[in-house]
């Protein structure tokens, strides 16, 4: 379980990008966060696995604070996967090396174990034939699926997605969403920043609306779309759903 207590983050003094957010992400749930550009969604996500140094509040993973002296931040990150808008595969490594790097170096898996596991994951995301290729030789959709496989190779307890489909052509969005739907079905804890409202409606357990660094609204996905309370949410939804 991921628990956030009074989290605030700023890059410049006086301008809180994440503003006093408290929330809980229970195990096995898929939570979607949406909101206008610049509302702090990416920054918030990066706080959860300690990629961003927040100034106030606490992030607790299974009750352990990220900032506690005895917490090894690398160990925490190893247990939380993250998928990025622009994939961020390592372009100078093959697909297989991209996936096996962290398992070998962080989990100290043998090369053989890591490769076996990587091939399983590549099969699961539907592209086992691309193992020896370089990221630059793949389509965007394929790259994003490799990136998901790279995260899954660490056997994470939760996955963070930061607009995983917004850099993709429409025909590739589906193949990535399918992988995510499969993951959700397997009970993975997922926090997904996305503007794919179809995904939010069908797959998410809850949807959060974020604006100016705050969580303005959090509802079950049905209620979020049928009965949004906040005028800003309604306005946002009307713009995005047309």
């Amino acid at each position: 379980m991921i628990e956030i207590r009074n989290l605030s983050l700023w890059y410049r003094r006086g301008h809180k990008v994440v503003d006093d957010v408290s929330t809980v992400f229970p195990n096995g749930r898929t939570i979607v966060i949406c909101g206008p550009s610049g509302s702090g969604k990416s920054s918030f996500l990066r706080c959860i696995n300690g990629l961003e140094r927040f100034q106030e509040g606490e992030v607790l993973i299974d009750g352990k604070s990220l900032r506690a002296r005895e917490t090894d931040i690398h160990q925490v990150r190893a247990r939380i996967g993250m998928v990025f808008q622009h994939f961020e595969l390592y372009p100078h490594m093959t697909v297989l090396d991209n996936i096996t790097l962290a398992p070998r170096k962080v989990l100290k898996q043998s090369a053989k174990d890591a490769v076996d596991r990587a091939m399983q994951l590549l099969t699961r995301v539907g592209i086992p034939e691309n193992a020896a290729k370089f990221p630059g030789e793949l389509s965007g959709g394929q790259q994003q699926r490799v990136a998901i496989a790279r995260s899954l190779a660490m056997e994470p307890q939760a996955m963070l997605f930061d607009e995983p489909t917004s850099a993709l052509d429409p025909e590739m969005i589906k193949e990535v969403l399918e992988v995510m739907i499969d993951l959700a079905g397997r009970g993975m804890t997922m926090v997904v920043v996305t503007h794919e409202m179809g995904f939010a409606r069908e797959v998410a357990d809850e949807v959060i609306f974020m604006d100016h660094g705050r969580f303005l609204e959090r509802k079950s996905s049905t209620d979020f779309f049928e009965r949004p309370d906040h005028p800003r949410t309604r306005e946002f939804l009307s713009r995005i759903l047309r």
Partner: protein
Amino acid sequence: MFHYDFDWSVLWRHPYGAMFAKGVWTTVSLSLVAWGIALALGLMVALCRVMPCRPARILGGAYVEALRNIPLLVQLFFWYFAAPALLPKAIERWLYANVRDLPYYLAILALGTYTAARVAEALRSGLLAVPPGQLRAAFSTGLSQTGTYWHVIVPYAFRIVVPLLSTEFLTCFKNSSLAMTVGVMEATGTASYIDSFTFHGLETTTAASLVYLATSASVILLMTWIEKKLHIPGMIVRRD
């Protein structure tokens, strides 16, 4: 009227042939060892310059600015005339008594540390060109700072700056000729030395020039090969 009796045999006849071969070898070994130092030290300095730690950045910056802006000739003289004197007297005396090729080693240090500053600048531009998302991606898989730089950031940066490094490598070769000013008998020094006995400087300097052209050509071939090897598929290809 221009009258000059060419005698190319000064390049191979005894004892000049062996001298010249040794000179060429000195140029090659001096440049290569200096280049090795430059790469290793340059990488460390470049890393210092992109670290979040401020003192490291300042130290790295100071190194680059000092070494890059003092003429190499002055630095050579520093290493040759001043550096040994800065050591304790006993060590200095021991050095002069026991290290036969002291100027050679001092020239390597001078050329290596100077070239390191230039390599550091090239590598820094490469490190800064690596998208910040790569750092986040590597960190997000639990890799440590060292692991992230060693496996992801540095190899990526290297590939970006291979063409820049080729240029520095060539410059390092050519700069090695300055070592003759502190008495190292490398190719240029040997050429002028043979001239002082035979008055056939035209042949010897021509030969020295050809040596530099040949080594440069090999370096270019080597670097082109390395560039191809390290090319990242899907990135812009250099065609020539």
